[in-house]
């Protein structure tokens, strides 16, 4: 009986574990393996022999020496430093406003703010590009009437045009997580605060913010990882903006290396570096927030 029970969880988890291993763990291990491999070809196309050999860190050295790839990581760090705080601030303010006692139709607004998250990034980018492309955009036309020349797709502005799309998409999602945490704050705390004469500001500042900290930390880490993985938005927007090249973001760079150049080993090294960068940045953020709480 006990022996029987001992195996039951494994049996029940087997379908999940099998898929998890096959579609998640194995590809990661294969990518890591691939990143340490290189191919040497004899003849014009390798018709006289193709040799796969262990490359040590050659693919990593190649990725790190690639100015375009390093620049793309720098670009994403800059993007994250600006976009993530703006989005978190917006999400927090919206969540607290919707959860305040004086909010009207909170259910409707909650759904409205969350709606963009239901729109896939590719579609969102196509929608927004109608507001960005000169000749199509009513915003650019309207600004031109009052003498302002807007260019949403230039080398210095397109990054922030992408940030705008990402913020529009994910603010509502982050807001929902924060609202869930706000709802778990016991009513007694609010009552006690009111009895003590706390104002609305004080409730928000002294009670709600400290208690939703775990949700804020979680959503920020998700956002940092999401930033490093930015792909669909710049990929789609690159058809309307020449400022977005084939290595604009780290993932675009790995994608181009793998699927336009067929250099899978070099792309695997880039992918591992992207994962490492996301890991280091998330870990640094967690360390930073933990230290503050002590």
């Amino acid at each position, binding site marked *: 009986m006990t022996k029987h029970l001992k195996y039951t969880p494994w049996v029940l988890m087997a379908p999940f574990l099998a898929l998890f291993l096959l579609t998640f763990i194995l590809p990661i291990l294969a990518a890591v393996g691939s990143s340490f491999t290189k191919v040497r070809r004899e003849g014009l196309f390798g018709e006289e022999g193709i040799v796969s050999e262990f490359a040590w860190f050659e693919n990593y050295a190649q990725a790190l020496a690639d100015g375009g790839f390093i620049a793309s990581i720098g670009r994403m760090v800059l993007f994250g430093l600006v976009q993530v705080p703006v989005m978190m601030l917006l999400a927090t303010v919206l969540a607290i406003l919707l959860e305040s006692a004086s909010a009207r139709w909170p259910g409707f607004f909650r759904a409205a703010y969350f709606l963009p998250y239901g729109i896939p990034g590719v579609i969102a980018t196509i929608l927004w590009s109608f507001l960005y492309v000169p000749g199509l955009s009513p915003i650019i036309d309207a600004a031109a009437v009052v003498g302002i020349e807007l260019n949403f797709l230039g080398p210095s502005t397109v990054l922030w045009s992408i940030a705008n799309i990402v913020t529009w998409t994910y603010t509502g999602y982050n807001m929902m997580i924060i609202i869930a945490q706000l709802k778990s704050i016991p009513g007694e705390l609010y009552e006690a605060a009111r009895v003590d004469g706390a104002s609305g500001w004080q409730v928000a500042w002294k009670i709600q913010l400290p208690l939703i900290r775990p949700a804020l930390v979680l959503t920020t880490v998700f956002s940092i990882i999401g930033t490093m993985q930015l792909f669909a938005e710049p990929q789609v927007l690159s058809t309307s903006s*020449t400022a977005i090249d084939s290595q604009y973001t780290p993932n675009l760079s790995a994608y181009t290396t793998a699927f336009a150049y067929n250099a899978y080993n070099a792309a695997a090294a880039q992918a591992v570096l992207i994962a490492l960068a996301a890991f280091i940045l998330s870990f640094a953020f967690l360390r930073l927030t933990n230290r503050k709480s002590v």
Partner: protein
Amino acid sequence: MTAPVSRRQLLGYGLGAAVMASIAGCASPGSTAVNAAPTIPPAGGKVTLTYWSWLKNLQKVADIWNAKNPNVQVETVWIPASNDGGYQKLFSALAAHSGPDLAQIEMRKLPAFILVNGLVDLSRYGADDHAGRYDPTLWNQVSYNGGVFGIPQDSGPVGFFYQDELLEQVGAEPPETWDDWAALAGELRRAKAYLDCFPLSDPSIFTAYATQSGATWLKTHDDGWSIDMTGDATMRVARFFDNAIKKDLVTTAYEPFSPAWFSAAANGKLASITSASWADALIKGVSGAKGKWRVADMPRWGNAGYGSTYMGGSTAAVLANSQHPHEALQFATWMTTSQEGINTLIEHCGIGWSPCPDIIGESRKGPSEFFSGQSYNEEVFAPAVKQQNPDWTWGPLTQQTFNILSDQFRKQASGGTLVDAVARAEGEIMTAFRQKGLSIRKADHS
């Protein structure tokens, strides 16, 4: 007593073995040498071929063949065009040891497929017997190492499309040389119009000009590739456009056939475009353009180089995992050299210039109502095909080469020159070849 292997250890071993197997499977793409295996004899019974292509309505062409060849039925499958997803699909299919019998692959992309052993050498199935029916320049671009790796399907000889009225305003004829072209561009600038644009982000156009000027960037040798992007022929073009950009004779603000280009062309701000025969269909999309455009020969680089050049062009290639290369070759040659094949490819698929010099296609003969009654295909493009650089060879890293060039060209905007950009790109391209495990050296100038 030997320690029994624990479940965890067993799992570990199994995982390790699976990883090693999967890594071994990924590590050497294209190690199955299809062209070293014995040839596949013609099939006895009925076969069905699949053809992946981004031509719309290609099935209508295949249906004509199917009606006459009950034993060789062709099914077409639409894929996204070239690098927009089509090639990715093809490479993935090849890696999975599957894929169609035939695929549409651009001339410039063929070597990348050869690099992964993805294409059948059709000379082993008698492709050479058909060589005489194709434009020799195109045949050279599908031939590597004595083999034939694709059947030319269409191409793009280049001419000079211009707006008659705008040139007449400054009292000019279509330019015969690029020097005339620069003078004309200057005249038009005084009339607040541009003669043409020069796209920094699409180096295929620069490449076509350099080819016309006589450049052959890559050559094949017994010991690998040699590269020459800094020879006179290429530098002549780079210096010319450095100068043209500096003097504001061309605009770099937009690319050909972008929304901004169409608007400039429609508003009389852009007088001409030097482009391939297939640009005729695009120019018909300029609003109110009917009767305003004509076509002339491409301007020449003085006495050097060639009368025309090529932009674009694709092949029907037989993929490595095809079980019926013999039948696939038969279909591909019928499609590209028969009167009805070419006519229907033009009618249904709007294909580029015919690869068969004897048959340009019925609908391309005679005067065109749109181009002011000019028989431009017979006057300009049919002769242009005979005046192209016959030596050009595409390398296996064309896409990367173009990306490297355009990254370098973009520095033009911040004060760089095309001359420097090309020289720097050459070094980067050599590095990229070596990173692919290929050998390349700088061509020696004699």
